[in-house]
């Protein structure tokens, strides 16, 4: 990793364009955390996230010659990762058309109150617990900034369905996160 600090991004880009393994690995190391985080948001679990990340970086290295230099390298890589995650979701949808989400019959309660703060890891786990469609729509809308129209196009659903999944995802997260927080308060009180 020390070598990575001394390598400038342009050298990294040139090395990857040459398909030099050393530079490819440095690139992977540099952006692993951020891209793995993206994958985990879209994935059901860590194994799923690893699969997405692998496929995404294989695409990154294969298409590196297409990187024009416009925009940040990180943004370019992240767009490929997100796209790969969406493809992953689509594939899962085809394989699990009839799978009913675990939380679908949860009641949509009133807005809960969350005071204080939550650990990022817990929130990540909560997101991963969401049903596929809710998780994907929530990520695309709330994190990546897609519009409902874009989401509808990407996921081949209607805009209304997209809004509904987003709403459901929010409700689910609130329900999931509030008890965790409450539990932690009890821990602190003890």
């Amino acid at each position, binding site marked *: 990793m020390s070598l990575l600090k001394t390598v400038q991004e342009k050298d990294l880009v040139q090395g990857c364009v*040459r*398909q*030099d*393994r050393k530079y*490819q*690995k440095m690139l*992977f*190391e540099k952006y*692993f*955390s*951020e891209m*793995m*985080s993206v994958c*985990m*948001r879209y994935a059901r679990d860590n194994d799923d996230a*690893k699969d997405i*990340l*692998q496929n995404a*970086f*294989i695409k990154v*290295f*294969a298409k590196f010659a297409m990187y024009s230099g416009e925009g940040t390298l990180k943004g370019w890589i992240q767009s490929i990762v997100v796209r790969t995650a969406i493809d992953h979701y689509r594939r899962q949808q085809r394989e699990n058309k009839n799978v009913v989400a675990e939380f679908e019959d949860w009641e949509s309660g009133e*807005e*809960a*109150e*969350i*005071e*204080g703060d*939550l650990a*990022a*890891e817990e*929130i*990540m786990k909560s*997101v991963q617990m969401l049903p596929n469609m809710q998780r994907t729509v929530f990520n695309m*809308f*709330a*994190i990546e900034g897609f519009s409902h129209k874009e989401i509808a196009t990407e996921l081949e659903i209607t805009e209304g369905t997209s809004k509904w999944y987003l709403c459901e995802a*929010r409700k689910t*997260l*609130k329900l999931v996160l509030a008890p965790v927080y409450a539990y932690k308060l009890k821990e602190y009180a003890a």
Partner: protein
Amino acid sequence: MRLKNFDKYIKEKLLGYKPAYQEDIWKAIEEKLPPVRVPNGQGSWLLVASAALVITALVPFLLKFNNLATRQEQMVQMSSGNTGSTSLEKPSIIGSQQVNAFNSDQTTENQPNSGSGENVASGNRTNNVNSLNNNSGTLSQKLSGSNGIFTHKARHSLNRMTSSGNHNIQRLHNESQMGPDLSRKTTVASAEEHSTMGLIAIAPGDIDNEMDGDFANTHLHDDQLGKYADRMGVTNNSRWANWQSIFYPFWQNPAYTGSEGRYNFTVDDRIDDLSNFNGGHSINTHTTAAADMRINKLGMGIGVYYTNDFTNLSQQITEGLALSKVILSRGTTSVKIGASVNSINNNLFYNSLNFSDQVVPGIGFVNATKEKDLAGTTQAIGLNGGIWVSNPHLMTGFDVVNINTPHLEHIKEAEPLPRLWRGTLGYRFSTGSDFQWLPMLVMSRQSGVSQSSATLTVVFKNKYMLTAAYQDIDPKTGLGNVSVYAGVDINKHLRLFASHGMNAEYQAFGINEQFTHLGVKYQIL
């Protein structure tokens, strides 16, 4: 905190999440990545080409330095009293700076004999003797060092030297100052150069896709090409790998016998045209006919050849038999060894006026010497050996000519034909679906003198070949033969090739030498 900004809150939290690096994911990615095109990455062919060019550029200067150092040592030795004069002195009879340039190529093996000739010769005569012997050494190296199809410079070095030698001998004889030992020595030296030409004219053929036995792995199969990413989808015609045999005399290495095809037949002819040569004009020819084949079940190759070198001073016919054997085969890499034996018949014309049974005007028949007439045919049997290592990228060989340092049969006092040590190195690679490249270096050493040649070949669509060559580079001047070669595959069996070039070294001395070459190869793969 109320959840009014729930999305924002979740987003900030998620973006702040940084999982730890996991090496196993990289390893999984690395396994799935496509193989690197060539070692060290996509652009490494540039490295290979650059290295070849740099080496090509440096070799002549390195050799020049090395040979200059050797000559300096020799000059010091000579000046300390070993000989009566230095080899760098200008020969008085030849009287030409052109020839003087070759004189300095002399080696210790070419020191004048200590016989009666040197004892009685003095002044200019001594210089003449030295010049002749030195020239002989140079020629011996030049000719033997470049036995191939395009040894233009060597042949004309011989031509010029033997011509000069003739004049020298005649003058010395006329003055009754030179004994038979010296004259014989000079003549033999000239004959040696001729006798080393065209030793192993084994016809290069092509690759057999139906190979069996040990030969099965000695060259490319179409189904093996996929193992080499830079050739994948490019060289489904494996014949391209053999273009180098046109301009580079790999057929001189007996280990190459039978390597290229099941049956190969080659006919080749070259014409050397010299003008302003000794004030005149000269045309020399070199003709080769050769055939070789492989015996797959035995992993052996066998070949026969015939060469005819004709100049205005001599004719030499060489007939030979060559054998090769695969000794190691690993994957697509093979190692072969080979040996050849040849009969060298050399007929020198010029001595017929100088030696026995000559008629001197005003005197009549004179038996000038009891020695056997040096004119006419002399013969020697030469043995040669080599090793050949090749795979789809690498092609390297090493061979030794005149292992037995043969003597011409009826001149016992003559120096043996010197050994020639020769190494070759070529590397094949492609830069696209249509282009293959082959840079190649050849290094040889004989009688203490080194020479080098460099070629760069490009093959287009497995059918057309073009080569730029700088061959037989003189270590002293750094100049050599500049040539362009071209070839085309007419059909599955027939290949035509031709070349044209000029001698840059001679050009520097005011001699215009152009050489033209035409050949045809018929192959049954």
